[in-house]
């Protein structure tokens, strides 16, 4: 039990890592959801070029492991003269990767949307972007909330990979405590406990939104 006392004494290290994980994941989740919605529009667009371009991007991201992309952004971009801190490169990697997944899950929800509501929107004179924004996206978001929640959990798990490019997130903090005090069990168990609590919180949030959506109907 001694190990847990040491981790508790170093809780500021662990918590600042945790705060970084939360910040990275939260920003990545929000930005990739917004960009993912735009990409989903491209996936569902009438123009063939937009569709093909978006599909190639989504498929490429679905074939790459996250760490490989993070490596490419962290080590690759400097040779094009773009220099960023590892925190920023990590965040950009998270966004670039998850935009594809968000777009794909929104597309799936969009494809399942009943045709009638879109036709009714047409009948009421909604067209183009206005139709998408006012009629299509709101129900798509509500239908996709469970998948968005899952993807957010995936983002949090992906963010742990960033420890390999030395971003000071939760796993990195646990590793720092373990290398200083040799308390591997306590520090990694503490880290996993924090990840677990976060995911439980997201799942609770998703269930809550689900109830709200049901009440609205």
């Amino acid at each position, binding site marked *: 039990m001694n190990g847990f006392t040491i981790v508790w004494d170093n809780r500021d290290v662990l918590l600042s890592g945790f705060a970084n994980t939360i910040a990275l994941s939260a920003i990545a989740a929000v930005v990739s959801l917004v960009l993912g919605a735009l990409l989903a529009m491209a996936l569902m667009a009438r123009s063939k070029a937009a569709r093909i371009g978006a599909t190639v991007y989504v498929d490429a991201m679905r074939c790459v492991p996250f760490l490989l992309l993070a490596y490419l952004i962290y080590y690759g971009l400097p040779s094009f003269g773009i220099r960023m801190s590892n925190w920023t490169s990590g965040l950009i990697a998270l966004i670039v990767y998850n935009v594809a997944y968000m777009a794909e899950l929104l597309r799936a929800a969009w494809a399942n949307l009943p045709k009638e509501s879109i036709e009714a929107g047409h009948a009421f004179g909604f067209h183009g972007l206005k139709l998408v924004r006012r009629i299509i996206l709101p129900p798509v978001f509500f239908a996709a909330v469970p998948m968005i929640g899952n993807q957010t959990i995936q983002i949090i798990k992906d963010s742990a990979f960033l420890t390999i490019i030395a971003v000071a997130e939760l796993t990195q903090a646990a590793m720092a405590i373990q290398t200083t005090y040799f308390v591997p069990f306590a520090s990694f168990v503490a880290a*996993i406990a924090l990840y677990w609590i976060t995911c439980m919180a997201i799942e609770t949030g998703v269930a809550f939104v689900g109830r709200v959506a049901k009440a609205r109907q």
Partner: protein
Amino acid sequence: MTWYDVYAIFQGAVFTVSISLASIVIGLPLGLGFALIRWSSVPVLDRFVVVYVSVIRASPAVTLALLIFFALPVVGISLGAVTAAVVTLTLSTAAFNTEIWRGALMSFPREQLESARAFGMTRGLRFRRIVFPQLVHSALPALVNEMTLQVKSSPAIAVLGLVDITRAASRVGARTYDPLPPFVVALVLYSLIVAVFVMTQRLIERRRAAEMEALR
């Protein structure tokens, strides 16, 4: 980048494939076992499975690998890096497989079980002859999807100092100061691996469809 570098990344691919296959081969039956524990609500054990699935689903593979590699020696179990990697990937894929198998079990038609019981089949026989053959096919798409996710989370073992596709590619990139070509090679290799899984799934599904057609 020389041909030798391509060969080095290819060797990483062999490692990625073998370590992923090992965890899939162990993780599939393990997940089925856990799912059966929950399905038949074995007392106490099924609570353990619930907690296990919930915790593993939430833990990143990197953190899990570190825990298994660095923490198990504290309780007297010392694993080599490769074994620790296989254990990590197996534990994580088994948790996801548990949920997939359980989902398939939950949607299994009750009437079939009842009629099998009416024919006097024992519990084990019912499972072997009636449930399992159909379960495999209904769970297959989700299982294959999980396998491809597994291949993509396998670079996590880089924290244990093992060299898989991603690590090999990043090494070549670091040495040549030109990360794009090794990245493309790695991308192609990962796509090939994922494609093999998906194609095998389609093959099994086509065969199954043909069998069902022949039965009619």
